[in-house]
């Protein structure tokens, strides 16, 4: 222990750090905390991998004409969409809701950290987790015999716009509801999306009215868009991208207006 006199140690030397340093610190803590939470690993990795294995090994999906290809070619894009949803929406909403109720957002808001850098750090944390998920899921899918098509850039673009839409929705929910309500609602929405998002079975199996409703949701837009590219080798699916961008814009504006920091 160095014996620095307290008068020297605590002598005021205030000032903000350069924002890139704050951004790196925020991104790293978001990433660490996410990976440390058992339930978020379950949500982000174990469930998607389980779905991949289940629907390729147990032949519930066998109508290849309806699926547009083999079961793995159908299920893999859907599971990628689910991975984005689980991290950008469900995980982020729950974590942010509790951060608000624990006063973390208030505490960070009282430091030199600008809110924009905090949100950017959260977003980079989400993207980093998604990269990890996608690496694992793509590896598992390949091992199960997946043959993706299409332009990888189109896939990346869909994933990014999808992330923006789901992040905005997650922050909208976390900023408006109590933490416990967010926990319940975010899990509920995850389930709805799993069933109505065209993830594990085609939307055509749904009754007409339900299918119409499901198609307007961002989940179906992301899953369908990814499938058009990866399964059918289509170019940029502008319709799906446009719908996702609209969700991102509307949810983002509403979230920015309604978000409460404490």
């Amino acid at each position: 222990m160095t014996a620095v006199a307290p008068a020297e140690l605590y002598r005021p030397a205030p000032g903000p750090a350069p924002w890139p340093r704050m951004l790196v610190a925020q991104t790293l803590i978001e990433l660490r905390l996410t990976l440390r939470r058992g339930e978020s690993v379950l949500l982000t990795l174990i469930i998607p991998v389980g779905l991949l294995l289940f629907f390729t090994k147990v032949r519930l999906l066998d109508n290849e004409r309806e699926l547009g290809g083999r079961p793995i070619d159908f299920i893999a894009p859907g599971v990628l969409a689910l991975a984005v949803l689980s991290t950008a929406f469900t995980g982020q909403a729950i974590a942010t809701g509790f951060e608000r109720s624990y006063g973390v957002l208030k505490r960070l808001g009282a430091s030199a950290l600008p809110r924009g850098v905090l949100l950017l750090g959260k977003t980079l944390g989400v993207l980093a987790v998604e990269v990890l998920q996608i690496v694992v899921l793509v590896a598992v899918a390949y091992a199960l015999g997946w043959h993706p098509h299409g332009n990888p850039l189109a896939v990346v673009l869909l994933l990014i716009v999808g992330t923006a839409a789901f992040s905005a929705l997650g922050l909208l929910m976390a900023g408006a509801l109590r933490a416990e309500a967010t926990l319940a609602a975010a899990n509920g929405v995850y389930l709805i999306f799993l069933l109505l998002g065209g993830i594990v079975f085609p939307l055509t199996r749904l009754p007409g009215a339900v299918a119409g409703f499901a198609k307007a949701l961002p989940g179906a837009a992301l899953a369908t868009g990814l499938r058009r590219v990866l399964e059918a080798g289509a170019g940029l699916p502008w319709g799906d991208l446009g719908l996702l961008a609209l969700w991102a814009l509307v949810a983002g504006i509403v979230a920015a207006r309604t978000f409460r920091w404490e």
Partner: protein
Amino acid sequence: MADAAVEVAGLAKAYGSVQAVDGLSFEIARAGVTALLGPNGAGKTTTVEICEGFRRPDAGTVRVLGLDPLRDSRDLRPRVGVMLQAGGCYPGARTLEMLQLLAAHAAHPLDPRELLERLSLTQVARTTYRRLSGGEKQRLSLGLAVIGRPELVFLDEPTAGLDVQGRRDTWQLIGDLREAGVTVVLTTHAMDEAERLADQVIIIDHGRLVAAGTPAQLTASDGAGQLSFRARPGLDLDDLLRGVPAGVTATESAGTYVIRGAVDPALLAAVTSWCAAQGILAQDLRVQQRSLEDVFVELTAGPPAVTP
């Protein structure tokens, strides 16, 4: 005051029908420790949170380091350290990680490990926040307030719920901050804490200013102090009073002598040397000044809360 650290004028804030702060005005000089003292619900936390920029006042003005806490938040926040009354940490983050995170926000932060040592938290450096004891959480929260080397810190109930050792460590750190020239503003409902730590005490009740001054000024015996001792009965009190300032009175009751007036070292010396001159050993000699607690009870007309 041109160089005031905090200036509050005509501050008012209501939550629904509850008037939490009601026309409060005070000034806090730079450097030194100032205690906002008051019973629970007096408006201390609301006042501090307005100064920190968390809340918008209904009326009145607040200047912190000459800046508006809301409008100039961006310039002000890096210069001010904040200790919330509770919470403020990721439950899953480790003690050292929280300090490192806040250190990353400052241009010239303290070394997180050295600060852990000073806060007696080295043992729990790798423990997550949710597993810390109440006292450890409090000390970490204090550490988060000072790690950026701010020129002003707001500490909301820094010793609430601490054990004796934790309280002493916290007092030590506040003393160190004071020595380093940091302006410390703390809230407390513990009299002894205010009396012991503060250069200036601002007493608040029902959102209003009740009194302000140094502990010595507030407890100054406006004739309220007294000296007492026992000796053989029948001493010549007139002779005693000739040697002390005017306004001091003396009474005897069966060998117990009570001298009332402004008790100061000179009066004590005068009384004891008079006793010595008489060849008397004054037994059970007692000096009783008003404590801050007496002042507080008088001013707020209610008993102070007891620190757990």
